[in-house]
């Protein structure tokens, strides 16, 4: 019954249609399917009405603990999303359209994505951006594969400061391609220069880093870029876009391929997705970019318009020779990213980054001053920092979780030997009161 809405044709109409086709029943239309191939089971519950469905889904969502105060990041960040983002990305002409293959009736999506590409270029300082990839991890993997294509080499040096999940994704993506991956241990929580010098060679396609890294540490990548370039390798960096409101752009540090996750730009946490991956590089590498790219052109009257361009890189034309297999991307999330950036604007975005920095610095000072607690980072940090505790971090985090505080991400699982450390994240949404409460509860958990 509930499906009546979605399959509109009435019994009479169905009869008329069958007559037009010249068959007696809908069943006949499935005659090309031999009986032997028919489904052996299809055990699903009966449908329900919209009201019952919504109650059910609400009940499900309410099985998640509400009101947990987040000091956790790990790649996804709890930022405020301006109301305009939902309202505008919620325009059904945006979210119920598909890939703009027909530009004349898709200028809305096409112009928005061109504006998105421009925003990514301006944030990162790079010359070209595509129209989005899946997420931050897959974007970094695509960046790595791009470096393999550009250099024609098959060796990668991956800094241990890169999000462990991202490193897993790179490893998974490359597992079958006979690419050598060299893990670079950290030094003082940032890229280990001497170690890099020793592993970097002329078979290396790229050095892969993250800035700020998984511990929140910021690094000046300039010398890394020089090192890499000296060996004919590229520097591929994954960045946290919000940091770019305050931190020097990857381009200014000599990065060749910049990637990152766009969740923090106006996309809800939503238990991990959807977000979007971005990738930007220099014009000379544009033909090696994966995914869709929007370009400006003119129509027959000379009016400006936008189209999918350089499609010869893509799977639907190049098939197995394509730069990537990606087809559907994360356009709507990228659109949200654009609207988010435009809503804060040049000044507001810089202020927001500063606000994240100031709040995290306040928290770092407060938490680092707790007896027995040590700030792990030597380098400056953006809105995350690592603490070493006098106790096992797992245990402390678990106990604070019971009090409604997600105090941070314990590092033991990702960095053997760091079982007493955790990474704490502070965004603009965390009030001084919440930070003070975390400090009090942490002290309590450690010493009483």
């Amino acid at each position, binding site marked *: 019954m*509930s*499906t009546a809405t*979605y*399959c509109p*044709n009435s019994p009479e109409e169905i009869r008329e249609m069958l007559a037009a*086709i010249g068959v007696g029943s*809908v069943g006949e239309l499935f005659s090309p399917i031999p009986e032997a191939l028919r489904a052996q089971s299809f055990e*699903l519950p009966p449908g*329900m009405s919209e009201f019952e*469905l*919504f109650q059910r889904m609400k009940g499900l969502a309410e099985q998640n603990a509400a009101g947990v105060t987040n000091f956790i990041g790990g790649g*996804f960040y709890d930022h405020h999303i*301006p109301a*305009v983002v939902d309202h505008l990305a919620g325009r*059904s*002409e945006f*979210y*119920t*359209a*598909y*890939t703009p293959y027909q*530009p004349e*009736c*898709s200028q*809305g*999506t096409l112009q928005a994505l*061109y504006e998105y590409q421009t*925003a990514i270029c301006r944030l990162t300082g790079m010359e070209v951006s595509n129209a989005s990839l899946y997420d931050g991890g*897959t974007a970094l993997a695509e960046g790595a594969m791009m470096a393999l294509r550009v250099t024609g080499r098959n060796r990668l040096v991956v800094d241990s400061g890169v999000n462990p999940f991202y490193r897993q*994704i790179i490893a998974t993506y490359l597992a079958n*391609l006979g690419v050598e991956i060299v893990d670079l241990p950290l030094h003082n929580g940032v890229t280990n220069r001497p170690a890099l010098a020793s592993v970097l060679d002329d078979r290396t396609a790229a050095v892969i880093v993250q800035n700020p890294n998984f511990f929140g540490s*910021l690094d000046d990548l*300039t010398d890394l870029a020089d090192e890499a370039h000296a060996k004919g390798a590229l520097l591929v960096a994954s960045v946290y876009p919000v940091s770019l409101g*305050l931190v020097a752009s990857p381009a200014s540090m000599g990065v060749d391929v910049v990637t990152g996750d766009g969740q923090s730009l106006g996309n*809800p*946490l939503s*238990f*991990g*997705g*959807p977000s979007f991956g971005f990738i930007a590089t220099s014009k000379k590498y*544009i033909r090696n970019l994966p995914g869709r790219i929007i*370009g*400006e052109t003119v129509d027959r009257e000379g009016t400006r318009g936008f189209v999918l*361009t350089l499609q010869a890189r893509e*799977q639907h*034309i190049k*098939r197995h020779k394509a730069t990537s*297999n990606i087809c*559907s*991307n994360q*356009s709507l999330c990228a659109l949200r990213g654009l609207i988010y*950036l435009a*809503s*804060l*604007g040049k000044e*507001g*975005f810089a202020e927001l980054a500063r606000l994240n920095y*100031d709040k995290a610095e306040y928290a770092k000072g407060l938490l680092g001053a707790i007896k027995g607690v040590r700030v792990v980072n030597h380098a400056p940090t953006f809105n995350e920092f690592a603490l070493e505790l006098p106790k096992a971090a797992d*245990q402390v985090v678990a106990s604070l*979780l019971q009090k409604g505080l997600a105090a941070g991400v314990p590092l033991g699982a990702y960095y053997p030997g760091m079982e007493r450390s955790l990474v704490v994240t502070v965004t603009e949404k965390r009030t001084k009161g919440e930070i003070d409460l975390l400090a009090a509860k942490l002290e309590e958990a450690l010493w009483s």
Partner: protein
Amino acid sequence: MELIYEKSVRGRRGVAPPACDVPRAADLPGNILREEKAELPEVSELDLVRHFTNLSRRNFSVDTNFYPLGSCTMKYNAKVLENCAPLFAPYHPMTALLPGGGPLAQGSLAMLHGLSGALAEITGMDEVTCQPLAGAHGEMTGIMLIAAYHRAKGNKKKYVVVPDSSHGTNPASAAMVGYEIVTVPTAPYGDMDLDAFRAAMTDEVAAVMMTCPNTLGLFNPHIREIADIAHAHDALMYYDGANLNAILGKVRPGDVGFDVIHVNLHKTFGTPHGGGGPGSGPVGVKRELVPFLPMPRVVKEADGSFAVETDNPLSIGRTANFFGNFGVMVRAFAYITMLGREGLIQVSEQAVLNANYVMSRLKPYYDLPYDTTCMHECVFSAGKQLRHGVHAIDIAKFLIDRGYHPPTVYFPLIVKEAIMIEPTETESKETLDAFIDVMIEVAKTAESDPEALHQAPLTMPISRLDETKAAREQNVCLG
């Protein structure tokens, strides 16, 4: 229309960030401090709202136009599903991965487990991972699983076999996993040429990727036979689920010999296409491949609660940040829950009915290269019209002037001047009849006044664009 950057005014502010309630910290060292603020738009909230609201009005979309884009299953997405996703918006995925965090994320984990279970039953697979972020990502994940399977068995495999009718992502995905592609031609009756297939099969073939019904909208009755041949070489059968909308409750790939499948939630399971994405491409596998599934994996405990398994020695590892495109999955799970068993069966029956209705009504006016009962979509050719110098693309542009989003006209590559029409089950007979009338009008205009079609579209904010100029100038970012 002006770009948002062209509407910027120096110093104009948009949404204000919260006030700072902590002391200002010492500045970052100069070498890592950004020198000049990024030149983001400087517009008021009103400017912003007008810009994007008016931009949105320059799109055709399912909610405003009939959108029979073949192979993309542009069905209507029930609005209640849009209201379900935000219910999960506030939850951080890391919560479930924290020590003691599982109990705080039971709702999200239950949804993931419920969706995987439903998809396993729908496709006839033993287990499903929801991590892949789109169809192509699912394909790559699936091929990685197959590679892991062969590696574990010590099989030496080199090739992946695909029919020439396959979607570009199939060979592209296989290539990304390091396989070479062997392409098998399509027989005159529209299915993969069986003899050519037999000839292509060797023990070095890792997998055979098929779409069924294929991209011509035809169901291959020899699937089981093909699977047997493949399996005889210990090659695994991969099912591209992009066309699953045709066979819900009718055929389960898992029942007919497929070992791995991806489904496109944004196609079959009623989630919006977002102007190009996000989608979601869960992958289902048979028992032998379960050990290789990516991490994290949601498991149901004896006590009925849900937990997250994060490592497993045989796992291929990780293909995405966290659990996949969760918000998309919520919609799909709600869709399956709302329609239920009967509803899903009805979906395929009506989708197939609509496609055959359009096919039989348009047959007199357009070439039909493979003239037989179709499944969820039908593929015509503009061959007839080409004799008057009218290409499929001209027909497409004329449809735009009539308020219809064109069918797929660049694909499948094996049909020249292809016109691939997928009405989907959510469209009514009235809508189809109106569309058919226009398609007939176009066919007649192609004979009487081909030039009119070359001029189209005339009713849009822009006319046809110079794509060569775009590719030549590569202006992909405002200077």
